[in-house]
């Protein structure tokens, strides 16, 4: 359900690319507090590129504001410290380090006293991670690594969570689990989520707002519920 | 790094080409009359160092295998000439084929373990080789041949009776001939399939292999050819300097060649000529300042070139001539 809420992230006229290749052509989108915004589209549409642009990982032009501050051109680590957690494509797991160390890295920039209680909360959400506490993260299964990545991001106590294809390469049951977690995040905290997904069906079920990306431009935008119900759009752009 | 480093042939009328060749020859031979004995010696050494840098350039510049140990081949070539000349009284020319064969074999031999090593590891391994060379040369088991720490003395070859040149002048001509032959050989080798193959392996070995190139043979051959060329330079150096000793071949020789290659221009034949000139004359000037100065200046120039002019002097010249040619073309049309 799309609620009225303060805007966390606003992008206006964002252009971005890799080297000489121009991938994003003037994107506009928003993510609000406590809402899930889905970014949908086919392979190569530019979804991952969009997340990278927000995080300052690639050459970007345009206006991106986070919590009222302009972040275009800022270093990735500074943006992260502002409260933006990004779970990248491929999960970004620190393979050589243990699950425990991955957790600790999530809490690296925090100076408050609630880190231990947050660890405990994550153990409750992801009991399997607690079981594998001292294991090398690289030995975890794909689903477990995805959960670890989300836990690591949540331990940053972010205001905004970016998720790049969390369902990728995972069995349907695990995917259900993960989307359940995302629902929990939305319910239990005011964290906004920007979700990139190829699985449009799942994404639209969860999302409040959706944008459709095609070769670097937004061709459709609106409340997720409307887009889900519009058969023509679904057939044309989402393939079902 | 531009893959095209061998100058594309310029269309030129025959008379112009003839004039250039004659002019070039005149320029090369002029020093025989214009320079004093010592300066001629220095110029001869510059030619020799240019040849040595060319050798390094083949395997590192064109083929991407970083060698910080080419001083070893230089030493092998030097001793391959010094031992027969000093102990067995052979003539200089007779030692050249031996030098070529021995250096080729050693180069091939080094090339084999090198196959297993990528950029950095190869650099470090060849560097270890360079550091170990003086020790190996001084060892008891070979010092009957190498002359041990004291080294071997030779005499510069005399010019044949029909050529009225002093030994210094003769050696300059000999160096030009040997170097010239080597340059021609290498130029011919590199502008054809071999050159393109070497560079393909340098730039994208996986793709090259996928296209059917035999990486192992190509890379070991590159090392072998490279060793022969640098070895030839070593042979010439032994005869010109009239002395070889283990401590003449410390790791600084290898580093010097490396610096010469970078400054002159990686993957460029002309660059090797610039490199040779640089390597000879800069330290001479720097040594006048202090003992440490050559090393410091080398280091600063090396880093400066890597930051600012990675293509070396040859690259700069190439860019300038290309720009001149373009403006000329624009004027014509």
């Amino acid at each position, binding site marked *: 359900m799309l609620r009225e809420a303060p805007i966390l992230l606003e992008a206006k006229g964002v252009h971005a690319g890799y080297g000489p290749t121009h991938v994003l052509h003037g994107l506009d989108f928003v993510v609000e507090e406590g809402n899930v915004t889905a970014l949908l589209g086919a392979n190569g549409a530019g979804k991952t590129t969009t997340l990278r642009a927000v995080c300052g990982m690639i050459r970007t032009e345009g206006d991106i504001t986070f919590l009222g501050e302009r972040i275009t051109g800022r270093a*990735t*680590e500074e943006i992260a410290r502002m409260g933006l957690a990004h779970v990248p494509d491929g999960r970004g797991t620190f393979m*050589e380090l243990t699950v425990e160390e991955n957790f600790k890295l999530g809490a690296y920039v925090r100076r408050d006293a609630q880190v231990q209680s947050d660890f405990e909360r994550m153990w409750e959400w992801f009991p399997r991670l607690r079981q594998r506490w001292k294991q090398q993260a690289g030995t975890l299964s794909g689903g477990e690594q995805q959960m670890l990545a989300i836990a690591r991001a949540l331990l*940053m106590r972010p205001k905004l969570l970016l998720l790049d294809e969390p369902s990728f390469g995972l069995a349907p049951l695990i995917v259900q689990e993960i989307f359940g977690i995302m629902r929990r995040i939305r319910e239990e905290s005011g964290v906004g989520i920007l979700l990139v997904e190829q699985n449009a069906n799942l994404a639209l079920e969860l999302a409040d707002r959706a944008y459709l990306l095609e070769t670097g431009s937004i061709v459709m935008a609106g409340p997720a519920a409307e887009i889900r119900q519009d058969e023509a759009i679904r057939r044309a752009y989402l393939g079902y | 790094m531009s893959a095209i480093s061998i100058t594309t042939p310029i269309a030129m009328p025959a008379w112009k080409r003839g004039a250039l060749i004659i002019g070039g020859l005149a320029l090369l031979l002029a020093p025989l009359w214009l320079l004093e004995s010592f300066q001629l010696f220095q110029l001869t050494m510059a030619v020799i160092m240019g040849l040595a840098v060319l050798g390094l350039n083949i395997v590192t510049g064109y083929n991407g295998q970083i060698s910080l140990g080419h001083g070893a081949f230089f030493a092998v070539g030097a001793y391959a000439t010094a031992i027969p000349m000093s102990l067995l009284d052979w003539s200089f020319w007779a030692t050249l084929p031996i030098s070529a064969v021995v250096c080729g074999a050693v180069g091939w031999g080094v090339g084999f373990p090198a196959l297993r090593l990528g950029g950095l590891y190869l650099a470090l391994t060849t560097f270890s080789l360079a550091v170990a060379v003086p020790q190996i040369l001084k060892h008891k088991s070979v010092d009957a041949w190498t002359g041990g720490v004291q080294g071997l003395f030779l005499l510069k070859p005399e010019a044949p009776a029909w050529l009225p040149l002093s030994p210094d002048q003769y050696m300059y001509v000999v160096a030009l001939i040997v170097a010239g032959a080597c340059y021609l050989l290498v130029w011919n080798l590199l502008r054809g399939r071999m050159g393109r193959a070497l560079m393909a392996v340098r730039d994208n070995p*996986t793709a090259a292999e996928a296209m059917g190139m035999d990486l192992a043979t190509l890379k070991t051959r590159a090392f072998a050819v490279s060793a022969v060329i640098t070895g030839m330079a070593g042979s010439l150096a032994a005869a010109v300097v009239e002395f070889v000793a283990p401590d003449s071949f410390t790791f600084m020789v290898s580093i010097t060649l490396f610096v010469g290659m970078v400054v002159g221009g990686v993957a460029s034949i002309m660059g090797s000529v610039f490199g040779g000139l640089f390597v000879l004359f800069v330290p001479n000037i720097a040594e006048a300042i202090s*003992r440490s100065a050559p090393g410091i200046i080398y*280091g600063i120039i*090396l880093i400066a070139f*890597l*930051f600012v002019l990675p293509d070396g002097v040859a690259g700069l010249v190439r860019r300038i001539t290309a720009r001149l040619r373009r403006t000329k073309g624009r004027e014509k049309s």
Partner: protein
Amino acid sequence: MDAFAHQLIAGIATGGIYASVALALVMIYQATHHVNFAQGEMATLSTFIALTLIQAGFPYWVAFFATLVISFVMGALVERILMRPVQNAPVLTHVGVFIGMLLIISNMTGLIFGYTTKAFPTPFESEGLLFGGLVSAHELGGTAVTLAVLTLVYLFFAHTSLGLAMRAAAYNPRSARLVGIRVGWMLALGWGLAAAIGSVAGMMVAPAVFLDPNVMLGILLYAFAGALLGGIDNPTGAVIGGFMVGVLENLAGAYVVGTELKLTVALVIIIGVLVVRPSGLFGRVVFSRV
């Protein structure tokens, strides 16, 4: 038997030096995938600085710690000024920059401090040998110091937050940035730490070999051999490798090839490891994906 025991222990003592330098090499390699050819020269410069401080009247341990700090700063500065601009350049450029550094640092050391061999004091004096003639006080003390340094470094990386962040930055800079780690600073820190460790190695080896600008080059090669033997991407392995090389070098020098060919032993080890088992005894075998 006594002589063998002495060689063994001497080998462990020198092995401690190699282990320290090997650790410094591996730290920089892990973070940047580059080998610092100039590590030995930097250590030599540090040792000369220490000597200057001692000759100026400072007590040994004051000079020791001051040198550590100075070396740390130097290492961090080198990373920021020289390495940062070429971080995305091809391998040849990196090798060239390291060689350039080697030339500049070793010659500057010679320029500032002169080329005559100098004696370097040891804080561990003793009359003759200890433990029934097996080991000198300096060998014992020096080994203790290097072991202490290695232990502290291990504790730092394994149990502190900053150490964890540095490891993370070395293994996966992209993910490290995403959790807010300032990767650039971590690199500078790594270089500083490596330089500090190298300076300890220099100060511990100097009393035994006397100090001149070229002494550390051989040590660098042994350290590299040790790092390779243990696994260039494995700090613990590198330390073990360093000790092994120390013992091997001493035993080979005493019983097999004679002391004149010791550097060749390093060369043989390097080639041997790279040809037979490139990942070393404890390293990870890496396959490159096409």
